[in-house]
């Protein structure tokens, strides 16, 4: 009883006061309740992919949004996760609960292996060096078609679960759990250090932070997250085929960048918003106007980044919420005084 009351009070005082927190709550609840309303296989398939790709986008945000190590080759981690688990599954007949951790481990290792040489590179050099890795892996995959399936890819990978609703809950559950864990990580001291590396690495080093260690940690964590997404993708009924033209393509590398910048970089919710807006949109456009879908998509992205250069969620949040000038607590924009310290909130923020 005590815990219920505590929970209710927490809900009232901490969540319902801010529109952004209400949105997150409603979002999670509706995501979990969705299969109760509709079990349309196409919709479920779309949301399974959306959830997978939000995990993928968050992994990019972690490395590039927070730490500022812009990676243009993130498909390497996603593709390695997918390929490792697909190969283990098809060559050794291992079950998904063994291959998915293996795929994630391979991607983590790749994160470290890519991260170590990339420590020497700065900014644009890093972005363009990472661009090279998935293309080199594509070359390898195509060079050994007998082992890797070549251009056609790997077919008939073991399914994750028997029904699609189970799969939906499994993937959405993993996504929400992983995102929550990452959100706690970036909200802690580690996240602060990530920010400091992005803003000024020299200054961070001067403060005694071992930036090398934290950058490698960001690479490994990002690789792990993307690897989990890729491995789940390989086993999900939504994909069921792992081909270099899909999971290692240039477009696959650019997609998380588009989603994250669209949603708002260096926030965990930004990339998720980006995916949940853009991916279903692209899917719907594919049905409604297949001929013009990418055209409309590109135009929309162009207009959004033109008028909200810091991303959709950052813009929305700054519009509906205001930071208290004296105690830095967030308030809904309609309040006159701060909810924590009763300081007067100015109508217009300088």
């Amino acid at each position, binding site marked *: 009883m005590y815990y219920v009351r505590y929970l209710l009070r927490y809900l009232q005082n901490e969540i319902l006061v801010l529109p952004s927190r209400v949105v997150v709550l409603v979002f999670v609840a509706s995501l979990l309740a969705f299969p109760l309303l509709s079990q349309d296989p196409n919709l479920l398939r779309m949301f399974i992919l959306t959830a997978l790709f939000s995990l993928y986008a968050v992994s990019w945000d972690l490395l590039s949004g927070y730490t500022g190590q812009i990676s243009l080759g993130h498909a390497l981690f996603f593709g390695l996760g997918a390929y490792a688990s697909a190969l283990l599954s098809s060559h050794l007949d291992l079950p998904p609960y063994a291959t998915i951790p293996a795929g994630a481990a391979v991607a983590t290792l790749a994160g470290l292996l890519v991260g170590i*040489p990339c420590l020497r590179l700065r900014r644009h050099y890093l972005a*363009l060096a990472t661009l090279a890795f998935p293309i*080199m892996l594509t070359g390898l995959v195509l*060079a050994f078609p007998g082992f890797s399936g070549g251009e056609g890819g790997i077919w008939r990978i073991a399914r994750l679960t028997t029904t699609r609703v189970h799969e939906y809950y499994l993937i959405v559950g993993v996504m929400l759990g992983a995102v929550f864990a990452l959100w706690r990580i970036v909200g802690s001291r580690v996240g602060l250090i990530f920010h400091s590396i992005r803003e000024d690495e020299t200054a961070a080093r001067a403060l005694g932070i071992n930036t090398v260690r934290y950058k490698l940690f960001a690479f490994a964590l990002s690789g792990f997250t993307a690897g989990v997404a890729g491995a789940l993708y390989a086993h999900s009924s939504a994909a069921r085929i792992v081909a270099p033209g899909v999971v290692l393509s240039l477009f696959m590398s650019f997609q998380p*960048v588009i989603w994250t910048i669209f949603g708002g970089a260096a926030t965990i919710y930004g990339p998720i918003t980006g995916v949940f807006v853009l991916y279903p949109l692209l899917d719907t456009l594919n049905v409604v106007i297949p001929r013009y879908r990418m*055209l409309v998509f590109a135009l929309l992205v*162009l207009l959004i980044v033109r008028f909200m250069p810091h991303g959709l969620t950052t813009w929305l949040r700054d519009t509906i919420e205001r930071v208290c000038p004296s105690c830095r607590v967030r308030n809904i924009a309609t309040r006159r005084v701060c909810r924590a310290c009763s300081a007067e909130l100015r109508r217009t923020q300088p």
Partner: protein
Amino acid sequence: MVASILVNGLVYSGVYAMLALGFGLVFGVGRVLNLAHTAFYMVAAYGIFYFASTGFGLPLAVILTTLGVVAVGITLYKLFIEPVREIEATVLIATLAVAVLFQELVLVFFGNEPRHVPPALSGFTQVIGVRVGNQEMVTLVVAALSLIGAWFLLSKTKLGLAIRAAAQDREVANLMGINVNRVTSIVMGLGLLLAALAGIAVAPLFTVEPGMWMNPLVIVLAAVVLGGLGSLKGSLVGSVILAFAEVLVVFLVPGGSYLRTAIALLIMVCVFFIRPEGLFGSSIAEER
């Protein structure tokens, strides 16, 4: 074999050098990593295909295509890129969106099937006992002339001085009375002009298709960073190295056409292990 490696290598070098020079200039002066750069090359190839098939004369078609590409590019730059120029990641996405936009427009207007442009000059010529296609010669001459022209503009004119100054240090150039924004627009135009000429020059040699911007984009990015961002000499040397690496792999390794981009990028990554700032780049300590 050796002759075809040499000729193909030179053609690819010329094309990549034109693209890389424009890309490097735009990055150096405007600090814009323009992922749409090779999309304009693709648009120019389609432009020449369109004008050639509707029966304009060749000179008119070339002029119309170049002017069109430069005008459209400058307009898009002013409308969408310049306002967000300061935010790096956003520029990346905006230029990528422009590239995809062009690809899709071309798909809508011309369809997905590969197109071919009739060569400006057909037939072969004997050069020192080697048969070289006349169209290859034309492409090489166009590349050489544009590169020499760009070099002349950059090193011998007052505008070139302003461009080099802005590339070296934007803020100080601004303080010295150079209108940096105008110089950036001019450089953008110059880069677009080079990309358009490259597209026109290769249209008769390569198949013209909507996805033809992807591979050159990767190679151009690699060439520019291989040479060192901001170093024009570097981007030329980088293009030549990568072009010959690609052609050698295609001709000498079985199944090489799959591996050509991978090998070119492997070279770039190997150079990074030894010199993280590229072949001719300024070292990190000097950079601000």
